[in-house]
């Protein structure tokens, strides 16, 4: 079930809130686990079995590791951790990567339906067993809080990937404060607005542009901008909704995006985009590999490994691996070569250059292969021989001008800060802000009802 559907917005979500509110304190967690499993099963019954198996396997794995550590048997605990990690990755690999690897060796294999959210829940359970092994948290003997951590419905399908150490303190008791609830509602509505009223229309224009035949250079550039904005609003919208819903159930989850398109360097960009995934790779891959406390050569290897894995996590394709290498190379350049030069140029130019680097990268994201990505880049530089600008460019630019302007303006924190500043001034402002959010909700619902359902882009990962 997706957050941007009528059954979720008007049936599941209000019912879940009501049930959660009505049940006694001691039953809240078990109710939330049942609701989360129902939410997941709505879209994927076979996936639900896998999710349950994965949860059960890692539940016992963590208890085994904890028992071994408690008896001072670190070596065997390490073996238990490694076998658990291998088993978890094997499950992910079977569904997500087996076809890719078989294809490398020329073996044609059956395509498998990717269980919903498998990349996210696998990283969640890996976080759990690793945190237990590294002593960041104790293994949870009670199944309910543990299951709640893995399956909590706002984050099960597309994250944010919450690390166990960061949320363990909230699992047993997570009272819903009125201020947190209000802030959750606000965040949810902002996320819905981002998805339904910005990302979806941009996606529709991008899909149309993409299939409009030979692209003039400017049209190809415009397509890259459409997709870059769509991806941001789609995924950050989802993340806002997920974090907002979690707040309404008493959980505090860190933000997943922090205005990435105002970053003034590649490293800065990746501190602001899909923050939870970046933290996961930092804590469970980069730091165990030695992090930055090593030689320059080793550091470069560590960074590039993390980036190749990040690319590969997004999809089993050479285009994603290339995307990882592309960003790894920019991060290395940023760190070792161009940072000092970058710092000497005006901030707006740095932001523009960073956005250009990021947007070029997204071409490898939306293209089905490296070849077609380079084909698109070729179009941007005139390889389609359709000129720099034609009627299609004018049409796509002018028919989306307002949308583009809104999308670009809301990439910056200024509109949000402005709305916050006027809404705290006095009581009337709070009322006006509330009416504003209600109007936003009505417009979003109108758009959902009148348009074809559009899935979130990150569901495919």
């Amino acid at each position, binding site marked *: 079930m*997706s957050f941007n559907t009528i059954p979720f917005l008007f049936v599941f979500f209000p019912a879940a809130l009501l049930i959660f509110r009505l049940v006694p304190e001691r039953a809240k967690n078990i109710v939330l686990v049942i609701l989360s499993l129902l939410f997941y099963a709505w*879209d*994927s019954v*076979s996936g639900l*079995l*896998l999710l349950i*198996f*994965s949860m*059960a*396997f890692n539940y*016992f*794995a963590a*208890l*085994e590791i904890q*028992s*071994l550590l408690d*008896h001072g*048997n670190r*070596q*065997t605990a390490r073996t*238990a951790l490694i076998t*658990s990690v291998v*088993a978890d990755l094997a*499950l992910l690999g*079977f*569904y*997500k990567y087996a*076809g890719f690897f078989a294809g490398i060796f020329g073996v044609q294999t*059956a*395509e*498998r*339906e*990717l269980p*919903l959210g498998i990349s996210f829940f696998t990283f969640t359970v890996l976080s759990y067993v690793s945190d237990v092994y590294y002593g960041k948290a104790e293994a949870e003997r009670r199944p309910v809080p543990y299951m709640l951590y893995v399956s909590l419905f706002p984050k099960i399908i597309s994250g944010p990937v919450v690390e166990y150490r960061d949320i363990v303190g909230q699992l047993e008791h997570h009272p819903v404060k009125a201020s947190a609830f209000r802030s959750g509602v606000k965040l949810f509505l902002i996320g819905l607005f981002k998805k339904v009223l910005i990302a979806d229309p941009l996606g*529709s224009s991008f*899909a*149309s542009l*993409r*299939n409009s035949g030979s692209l003039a250079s400017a049209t190809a550039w415009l397509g890259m901008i459409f997709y870059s904005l769509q991806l941001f609003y789609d995924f950050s919208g989802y993340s806002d909704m997920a974090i907002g819903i979690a707040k309404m159930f008493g959980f505090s989850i860190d933000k997943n995006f922090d205005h990435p398109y105002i970053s003034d360097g590649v490293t800065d960009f990746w501190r602001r985009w899909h923050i939870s995934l970046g933290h996961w790779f930092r804590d469970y891959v980069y730091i165990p590999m030695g992090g930055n406390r090593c030689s320059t050569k080793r550091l470069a290897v560590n960074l590039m490994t993390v980036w190749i894995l990040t690319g590969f996590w997004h999809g089993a394709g050479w285009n994603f691996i290339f995307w990882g290498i592309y960003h790894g190379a920019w991060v290395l350049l940023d760190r070792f070569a161009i940072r000092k030069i970058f710092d000497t140029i005006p901030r707006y130019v740095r932001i523009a250059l960073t956005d250009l680097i990021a947007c070029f990268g997204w071409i490898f994201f939306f293209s*089905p292969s490296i070849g077609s990505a380079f084909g698109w880049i070729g179009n941007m530089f005139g390889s389609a021989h359709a000129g720099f600008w034609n009627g299609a460019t004018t049409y796509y630019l002018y028919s989306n001008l307002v949308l583009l302007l809104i999308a670009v303006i809301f990439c910056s924190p200024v509109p949000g800060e402005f709305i916050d500043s006027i809404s705290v001034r006095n009581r009337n402002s709070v009322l006006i802000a509330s009416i504003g959010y209600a109007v936003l909700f009505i417009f979003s619902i109108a758009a959902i009802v009148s*348009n*074809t*359902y*559009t*899935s979130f882009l990150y*569901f*495919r990962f």
Partner: protein
Amino acid sequence: MSISLNGRARVYAAAKWAVAILAVVLIAVHSAGTKMSSTSFDDMKEAVMAAADTTNMLEADSQMIRRLYGIDPDEYDGVLLWYPKTNMKSEELLVVKLRDGGQMKALEQAISARKDTLLQSFRGYGAEQTAMLENSVTDLRGNYAFFCSADDPDRVHQAFLTAY
């Protein structure tokens, strides 16, 4: 094995591997049930079209596919869509060959949403069209997706199954 040092750890390890074995069995059974088709999209299209009556339908171009189903045909190995000539009819035929298994979920949602839209537009006055939609056949099978709303959707579905 040093696991023998700790009876509790041994129990947990046994439980862990028992779960893993169960999971492997489940995956094996599930995978065996989803046979993939090696039929090319063109062959499938030919077989389905031979069984379908498209008198009341028009073939959709990429733009129309995106409009009606919200999917991008370029992301699939093949998409065939015939849609009603007028908005007073509810015949429809969709055949999609997937590029990868991960696309099935989005496609399932797209078909379901389209069917709901059609049902909503006929509910209350178009009893015949509503009945046709309620008898429609949706089959998500391996690397193909099929949806048919017609007087005799089973005949077209049978052609799809035979070609599959």
